[in-house]
Each structure stands twice: as C-alpha cells, then as structure tokens.
C-alpha cells in the first residue's frame, strides 16, 4: 500500500479503570511505548472493541501527561458499553488524534473561564491540565462545573481538592437539586454563570456539556457581554472515519472531526445549526 491507512488502528492496553459515577468510567490507555500518539487538548481518538466497533471519544488527559491517554466515557451506546466492560490489561484498538484542538496559543495571556456540565468536563479537563502545566501563559482560571447530582460529578478528587489549590484558580461546583450529602451550590450551570457575573474583559470562556446546558450557557454569556469570538465550545457528533470523509459530521463546508470539534461561537454561528 502506498501510504498508511488512516482507518487502521493500533493496539493499546487499558492500564486501569476508575469508576467515576454510576455510568462514567475513566480508562487509562497506553501503547507499547507509552503515549500512542502526540496530541493537543481538545483532540479526540477513535477507540474500538471488536466486534462491537469503533466510536470517537475526547481525550481527557493533558498532553503533558506522557505515559498514557485518559478517556472518561459515559455508558450510552454499544462501543461505550463495550469499553465499560473492558478489564485492566485488555487491549483495544485506537487511532488518532483527530480534530483541531483548543486554540491554546490564541488563549495565551487571557483569563480563562471553564464551564462544564456532566461528562462535558472530559474535553475541558485536557485543556485545564495543559494550562496548569503552562501556568505562566494564562491569567486567572475559573472552573465552573456542575452535574445532576453529587454522584454524577466526575474527577471528584481533582475538582474538590487538587484544582482549588492551583495558583490563581477558582473552582465553582454546583448540582441541579438539593441532596443530603451536598452542602455546596445548588442550581443549573447557566444560572450559576449569571449569578457569578463573570466579566468579559480579557477573558475566554470554554464550555462543554449537554446541548441544553450549552444553549443556555451561551445565552448567559451573551447577556454578560461576551463577544462570540470569546466563547469556545467543542461539538460532539456521530463520526465513523475521523478524517473528514465519511459524511456524518459534515456542517456546511466543514467536517467537525477534522475542522472541529473546537469552534468559537462566531465560527459556529456561520455554520448550519445542525449539531
């Protein structure tokens, strides 16, 4: 064959598995020589478990973590279900990285506001880790993260212990309703954004979560006078190839797998709203 087949995965080993919530597990995955490939925050990988198939997942570890890739995976479909059934030591197929990743250079010198909901923290966490590792390049970091219930928050030790201790960093957690074991903030993520009244000056907001959360977060940021160029999100669509050909994630002239999944709101507004 004249060149490598981009659809051809390599094998990688699931090193260990962390149960995050009742339906989310984090898999640590390594190739025979550590990282299967280099990547940037916001990029994705195709994971496969034959004969169930292949699906695309965002990489949740930071590229500064050199010994493995981490994937926080919610059990919602056939491939994610198969990945939930994997045991440590098992080999899976992996190919990537796919997508553009977050604009880490353009964000330099800015204050960063991360707004995540549920499993939507997964892609943000890669960037958060990257920013902590390049702390001098970025201004104040605010992380607002919410889930339906305290049990549905992922990466609990990081969000509660590790991240709040980072320099010049504030972490705000919220859950949708009152729970006996929860003494923190109660309320939906978008209203918490409004309540905290973040200012747009020299700030970039990066958001990911369920579509309904993103929709209202965008409205909240707009009311707080964030310009579309200051708001970044990452899209999730069904994908089969990851290389801009199979047609599923086509939005106007772009393919989300290749030209995305990270877009700022100005770019997104120029595309058909079909995601």
């Amino acid at each position, binding site marked *: 064959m004249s060149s490598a087949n981009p659809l051809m995965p390599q094998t990688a080993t699931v090193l260990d598995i962390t149960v995050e919530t009742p339906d989310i597990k984090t898999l640590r995955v390594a190739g025979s020589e550590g990282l299967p490939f280099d990547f940037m925050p916001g990029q994705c990988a195709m994971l496969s478990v034959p004969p169930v198939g292949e699906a695309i997942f965002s990489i949740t570890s930071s590229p500064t973590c050199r010994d493995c890739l981490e994937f926080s995976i919610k059990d919602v479909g056939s491939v994610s279900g198969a990945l939930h059934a994997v045991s440590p030591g098992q080999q899976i197929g992996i190919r990537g990285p796919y997508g553009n990743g977050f604009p880490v250079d353009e964000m330099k010198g800015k204050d960063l506001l991360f707004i995540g909901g549920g499993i939507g923290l997964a892609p943000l966490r890669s960037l958060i880790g990257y920013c902590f590792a390049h702390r001098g390049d970025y201004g104040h970091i605010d992380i607002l993260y919410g889930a339906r219930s305290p049990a549905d928050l992922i990466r609990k030790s990081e969000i509660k212990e590790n991240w709040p201790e980072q320099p010049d960093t504030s972490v705000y957690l919220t859950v949708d309703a009152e729970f006996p074991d929860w003494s923190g903030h109660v309320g939906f993520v978008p209203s918490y954004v409004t309540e905290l009244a973040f200012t747009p000056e020299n700030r970039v907001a990066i958001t990911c979560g369920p579509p309904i959360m993103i929709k209202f977060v965008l409205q909240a940021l707009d009311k707080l006078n964030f310009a579309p160029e200051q708001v970044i999100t990452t899209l999730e669509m069904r994908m*089969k*190839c990851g290389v*801009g050909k199979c047609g599923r994630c086509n939005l106007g002239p772009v393919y989300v797998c290749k030209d995305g999944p990270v877009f700022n709101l100005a770019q997104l507004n120029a595309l058909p709203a079909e995601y």
Partner: protein
Amino acid sequence: MLKKVITRDKLPALWAHLSEQGPLILPVQDGPVVLFKPWQEGTAVNLDAVNSAVSPKDIFLPREETFLHYRSGNQQLELKAVAEEEPVIAFGLHPCDLKAIEMLDRVFMEQDPPDALYRNRRERTTVVALACSEPDPFCFCNDFGIDPTAAPGADILGHLTDSSLLLEALTDKGKALLEQAGELLEDGSGEQVEKQEIKTADFGLKLEGLPADLKNRFDDPVWDEIYKSCLSCGVCTYVCPTCYCFDVEDFGHAAEGERFRCWDSCMYGHFTVMAGGHNPRPDRKERVRQRFMHKLQYYPEVYDEIACVGCGRCLRSCPVNLDIVQAIKALGGEKVEQR
C-alpha cells in the same frame, strides 16, 4: 500518443487477454440494466449503453471492502491490515463518471490525510474511458461543461463506431496497456475521429451563481416543501457518482473477524444518530437538505464546483422524482423564459 484500433468482432479476445492479469471491469448487460462488473467468459459486455444504472464509483470506493482482520483472546488484540495489490482495468467509463471520479479524488486523495484504500485502487487501476456517441434522454452533462467525447483523467480514450473501437493512449500507463495487448490491436495512427457535437437534455437549468445564492439559505422555507415526497429509500445516493458517504463496521465474533467499510447514505435516519439518541438530522427535511446542499453549496464552497455531473441516474431512479433537477429548480436554478 499511441493509437490502436480493433474491430468489434475481436473484442471478446481483447477482454480475455486483458482479464488475465487482474479484474477487468466493464459495462455488462444484466437483465434490464447495465452495471459495471468484472469480465468473465460469456459476460454480456454492452459498450453501446450510455449510462450504467449504478455509477462505476465502486471500482474505487467499493460497496464494501474489508481492510483489517482482528483476532482477540486472553486480553490480547491483534489487528492485521488487509490490502489488495492486483492491477485492475476499468473499461468503458463515460466522461461524466470520470468527472465524478475527479471530484472524489479531491476528497479522498487531495484532502489530508489521503484515503489509502481509495488511493491504492486509483493507483493500480488503468482507466479506459469511452466517448459518448449519443446521449440518453436523462443525460444533462452539458450543463456542467463536460465534453461527452473527451476524458481528461483517463489513461485511454475509446471511440466506438459501428464496426470498431479506436483506442488512444492519454498517459504512459494507457500506452503500456495498449502495447501489452500486442497483435490483438491494429495500428490506428491513421484513424481520425470526427469531432461530434453531443447535445444533452435541456431541462432549463440555470446553475450560474447557484452555490453562492444558497450560502445563506439553510433556513429557507423552500426546504419545508422540497423534501415532502422523499421516501428515504436512499437510491439517489446509491446510484450517484459523486456521493461518497460511508460506514465502518465490524463483522465477526469476539475471537476473530474483520473490519470493513461500506457505502452509507445521508438519506437514512440512523446515519447521524448519536449513541445517546440525539440526531442532528432527525427527519427527511434535514436529510434531503443535507444531500442537496452538499452537492450544490457545501462541496462547491470548498472545491469551486457543483458536485453533480449530469449523469441523470437520480432522474431515472428516484421513485418520486425528487431528483437533482427538481431540487435545483425548486431552489431557483431555473432559466426564466425571455419574452
């Protein structure tokens, strides 16, 4: 370049010779329709047909192709690439289909990363084009500026007459094929092809400026009407030479099996449905819009050319006449009669 000629009665001997080294894929009469199929002894080759029912895109993008075998057990997974290497001859492709292949080449070979499976097939295939001698009633390639008697991109261009087939090499690869056929072909250097003007159907289309005009018409109310007759059967995508959506699936069991890719269709509901159930193109409206916008606006925005070659296959095949001509007209791409 090198020109050769062969009388029609000797063509079966040429087919037999060419198929010795690998698959020879050509238009074959299969019941009521013509399809591109591999030649074998007794195959009813039909070079006089204008357009095959299904486009020959499957020579380069097969309906299904296995590209890896897997074995697993004891937590280990072994993935082995599968690749075909034999040379292929694609014989009798008409200029519209060659133009469509040029459009697929951009997606599969020019866009990074190139698609190795597609490129492998392109590189090991010698393409013998066949000039059209007359259009069928559904042909409208003139609208797209395609010359039905020329075949840029082919290795050999054939001209068929009542008695013989003239073959002219356009590339070194084509020349090698003609030379290799040896005495089966006679010298054709003295043969002249009379330049024919082939006039394809005039459906009254006005394509100029259409892609730009559609740029901001994603939410146009016209989409609430166009899709209504669509049955979601997907035949338009199946026969279309410029449709290329595909799926990747596994076949086998836990211990061993294969991964293949196959044609898929943006006309199907499951095409974009996500694991959690969300579907960005939930209904026929969104899917019909996707297909026509891709042909008429999205593809042209990237490649500066409408992704239709006027082959007429969707006009022939769509059970409800929701073909691209109807869509173009509904979207305003229709000539207005001057009084």
